[in-house]
């Protein structure tokens, strides 16, 4: 099965990935076969079985409510493609 072009374009848009028309075609085929492969899982009857999230073997570790981090602006901004003083800057986004 191949994913149709409209679905591929939509997924690409949600992931903010630009695709050339020929890529839409090949990706549709690739993604289709991935889905087909995963579909095999449907052969297992899971009626009445809760979805498994984690192993249930461990409980999450919780942190105390204390300030132990932060105050590292230079590190935080170190990889910023663009900055201005203490801020990250991005192309203007106004809704």
């Amino acid at each position, binding site marked *: 099965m191949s994913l149709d072009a409209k679905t591929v374009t939509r997924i690409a848009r949600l992931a903010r990935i630009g695709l050339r028309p020929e890529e839409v075609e090949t990706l549709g085929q690739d993604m289709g076969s991935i889905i087909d492969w995963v579909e095999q899982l449907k052969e297992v009857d899971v009626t009445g079985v809760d979805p498994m999230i984690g192993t249930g073997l461990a409980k999450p570790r*919780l*942190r105390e*409510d*204390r300030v132990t981090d932060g105050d590292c*602006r230079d590190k935080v901004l170190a990889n910023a493609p663009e900055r201005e003083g203490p801020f990250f800057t*991005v192309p203007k*986004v106004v809704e």
Partner: protein
Amino acid sequence: MSYRITGSTGEWEIVVGLEVHAQVVSEAKLFSGASAEYGGEPNTHVSLVDAGFPGMLPVLNQECVAQAVRTGLGLEAEINLFSRFDRKNYFYADLPTGYQISQFAHPIIGKGKVLVDLADGSTREIGVTRLHLEQDAGKSIHDQDPTRSFIDLNRAGVALMEIVSEPDIRSPEEAGAYLRKLRQILRYIGTCDGNMEEGSMRADVNVSVRKPGETEYRTRCEIKNVNSIRFVMMAIEVEAQRQIEVWEAGGTVDQETRLFDHVRSETRSLRSKEDAHDYRYFPDPDLLPLVIEQSWVDELKAALPELPEAKRARLEAEYGVSRYESSVLCVEQAIADFYETVARGADARLAANWMLGDFFAALNRTGRSIEDSPVSAEGLRELLGLISNSTINGKIAKEVLEDMVETGDSASAIVERKGLRQVTDTGAIESAIRDILAANTDKVEEYKSGKDKLFGFFVGQTMKAMKGKGNPALVNETLKKLLSE
């Protein structure tokens, strides 16, 4: 009387549900050890977890969980011992990870309720659908540069509680009352400071309209991020009006996100439909499901402070204040505490009258709050004691209160300093009245020939002559006696 809007085809009913985002009171953020404090130099309350650096893992803050549970208890809601965190995926410049960690399928708190008081004295129950924990985003600043937006991540990752109401609200007034009550409960429990100016509480408002009697809901619109109670009420009115016009013109309302512009008093479409969000929620693989113990919930419950409804009921029963008075006295815990300090050991009804009247007036006049009141609760109690034991009368007491606000002196010190002690000596009162009657023989004649209203004039003249210090009951009594001689 139900709230109705009249359109060209008749009456319409409005249906409103609110999603309130309340910032959790905590030291650190929901999943990192960075400070959750408001303000701060840009990008200083940020850890590498908040900034979405590769390989950084979230670790849940236990106090934020406790705050959500406390709030759930305050809303008389189901506490879910099992809950889970999901990723809500979208791209925005102030969301470094590209997803917000939220609770979608399994929120920590389920169905609850909020009781609201309306102006006509009736009470309504507004259902709460759920409450879940999630991260706040950073802040985009658009007005610093013509072509760029500036990003400050100090708020990114701060814990929020999203509190979703049922579509039970039927008027702007109910929406306002619900928000005020919710804020009051949060402040009592100490889980959110309710400060709407700083954005600690914001509301998304879901509005639809329908004809009275219809049982189905029509399409709703969501008005995003309204940041004051007044604006929520205005936005509902304006949006309902718009939808009614669309329906009545033969159109249909599209489900969409809108923005309220209070300056132009209108709502505007915010996102086009083809761009509608598809958040692709899925369980966050970095976080194990959250499992809490009933015994811990019980401990948190036992440690909750007295909540507004319980406090009101107790003040009414214990001190005999009215339903209205209890609502004013319980707006904030500090006011109720102040009242109780005054009322214990004074006339409790008199205390309520004075707090709601002259005392609040004095606070307003001086621009002070109950916390830094110029008159202490003990000071007010002493003043009321002087009224109760007839040392001064009510009118003089007002003057004493003003002096207390001004000078900070105690009531009894002021009474002594100014010589305001009430005159209860019947001889002194009688002689003052005789002087007044002698000086106004014409009025006495008029009174005796049936002009009863002049009695007030004689009382006024007597009090004036006695510099306001006469005991009012004795003055009345003596006047009646002498005038009938």
